[in-house]
């Protein structure tokens, strides 16, 4: 790159309204996130209609702040990158239409980014990616193992057959009476606990990299029922620790096995659940033993943000990808390579 490249990223796929400017695809110049957690907490989860209402309220403010923090005018930008999917369709549409209007008004090209590509590229903001690379994506909506042989090339080698890991965390947290979002609470209880209930691990077929968490969730519910039926009381810390151990064991084992089979040079974790301390410690330990570089971005880049969208968007933009004014929200969008 001769000249510095500045890309504005916009992300509204769930309950964070976010905008960011990233320089040359790897340097965060500004990163603004308006969270709705406080508003959504009273519903015990994200209500799509409420999320969309918040996005409309926040969108121009958040973009303005991202530009102000970066000390840049729209004319200094090279393109606008926006999350096209997957996600809540009504929420996606706010970011997409703001991105289109902004791009049109300022004569800028637009790029539609896959949310998971964004999560993976969050790592590019910390250290350069080295290929082949294995990415473990764990969030409220996703549990996937993706192999990348070069920039913009994705091969899905494993995914969840039922609940996403984050979804399982939220459901188990509800069973234990913990507030939403449940992941961090379970993580905390599990780390403090001196004892763990023994729950099953879903390994599936011996050679499979797929995941399944619904059986584990049922096991937790059954365990609680059994104890309560006998008039006993459940110790939430022991349940949290047992549940977390089961999830972490499976995620770590399969990631480590895939890393070996595909001979990767780098392993990265991405998504909201990647911020989980128990998971991080377990993956750290395994890959340190195996001598493989393993990275997880800091929490602010694990949870939904627009810097990751700008980072992935820059790689797409450099590859010549362009969106149009007809861009629509794609709630079920699949991760496709932009560089085959």
């Amino acid at each position, binding site marked *: 790159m001769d000249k510095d490249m500045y890309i504005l990223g916009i992300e509204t796929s769930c309950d964070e309204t976010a905008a960011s400017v990233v320089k040359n695809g790897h340097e965060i110049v500004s990163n603004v996130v308006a969270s709705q957690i406080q508003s959504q907490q*009273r*519903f015990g989860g994200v*209500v799509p*209609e*409420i999320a*969309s*209402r918040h996005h*409309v*309220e926040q*969108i*121009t*403010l958040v*973009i*303005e702040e991202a530009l102000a923090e970066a000390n840049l005018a*729209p004319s200094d930008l090279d393109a606008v990158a926006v999350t096209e999917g997957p996600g809540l*369709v*009504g929420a996606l*549409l*706010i970011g*997409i*239409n*703001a991105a*289109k*209007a*902004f791009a*049109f*008004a*300022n004569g800028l090209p637009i790029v539609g980014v896959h949310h998971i590509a964004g999560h993976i590229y969050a790592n590019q903001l910390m250290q350069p990616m080295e290929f082949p690379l294995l990415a473990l994506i764990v969030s409220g909506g996703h549990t996937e193992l993706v192999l990348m042989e070069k920039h913009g090339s994705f091969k899905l080698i494993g995914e969840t057959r039922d609940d996403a890991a984050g979804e399982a965390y939220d459901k188990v947290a509800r069973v234990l009476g913990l507030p939403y979002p449940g992941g961090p609470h379970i993580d905390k209880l599990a780390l403090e606990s001196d004892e763990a209930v023994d729950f099953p691990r879903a390994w599936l077929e011996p050679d499979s990299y797929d995941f399944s968490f619904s059986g584990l969730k049922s096991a937790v519910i059954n365990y609680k029922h059994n104890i309560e039926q006998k008039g006993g009381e459940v110790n939430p810390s022991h349940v949290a620790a047992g549940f977390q151990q089961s999830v972490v064991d499976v995620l770590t084992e399969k990631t480590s096995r895939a890393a070996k089979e595909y001979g990767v040079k780098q392993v990265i974790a991405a998504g909201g659940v990647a911020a989980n301390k128990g998971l991080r410690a377990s993956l750290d330990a395994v890959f340190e033993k195996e001598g493989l570089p393993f990275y997880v971005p800091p929490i602010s880049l694990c949870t939904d943000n627009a810097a990751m969208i700008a980072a992935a968007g820059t790689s797409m933009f450099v590859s010549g990808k362009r969106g*149009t*004014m*007809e*861009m*629509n*929200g794609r709630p079920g969008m699949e991760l496709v390579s932009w560089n085959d």
Partner: protein
Amino acid sequence: MIWLGIDTANMPLSVAIVKDGTILAEVNSSMAVNHSLRAMPVIEELFATVQLQPKDIDAIAVSEGPGSYTGVRIGVTIAKTLAWTLKKPLFGVSSLKVLAANAVYFDGLICPIVDARRNNVYAGVYEFVDGGLTAIAEDGHFAIENLLDVLASKERPVLFVGKDVAMHEELMKERLKENAVIAPFPLQLPRASSLIFIAQQSGQEENTHAFTPEYRRIAEAEANWLMQQRKDQDNE
């Protein structure tokens, strides 16, 4: 003064560019196509047609609802973003008032209607007074039967406007008898030029960042939550 007007509050789409009281171009359509697919392309086309750049406009008017939640949000998001980044004033106008503007000069009450499912409608009651539209009642979300009872009690001719009127035509005639007047089809779609006209006549400039749709209904989850709060309070 060059104005851009955008209405995506319901299934119809209307975009207009008006210069010094003349419509340079206007696109009206009513198709079951997602506004996210159509709105920006139509806006882009319109600017090309009239050979203007986005920065050439002086003000933006948008239909603020009520209507389809997603539809209103698409128009409002586009209008807000354009107004903010181009540093132009933004004017929000009731989607129902825009429909009512199709029927100015009618001697009687004007009732714009948008269907809201399960025998509910979004509706307003307007009257053409001294060359302008006056709201007789606040726009709202009503059970069609209740709305018609109130209108019948006025004992005046009522002109029903909007493409969803046909769905309730029978009931209107049954309740209001000969006082029920149904607007003909050329008057059924909202027109962005009318939207601009209303904004020019009586519009209040909005605070662009804070501007949000007029939903005229709280979200279902919020209504349930409020109900639960009240129940909990009663039980305490």
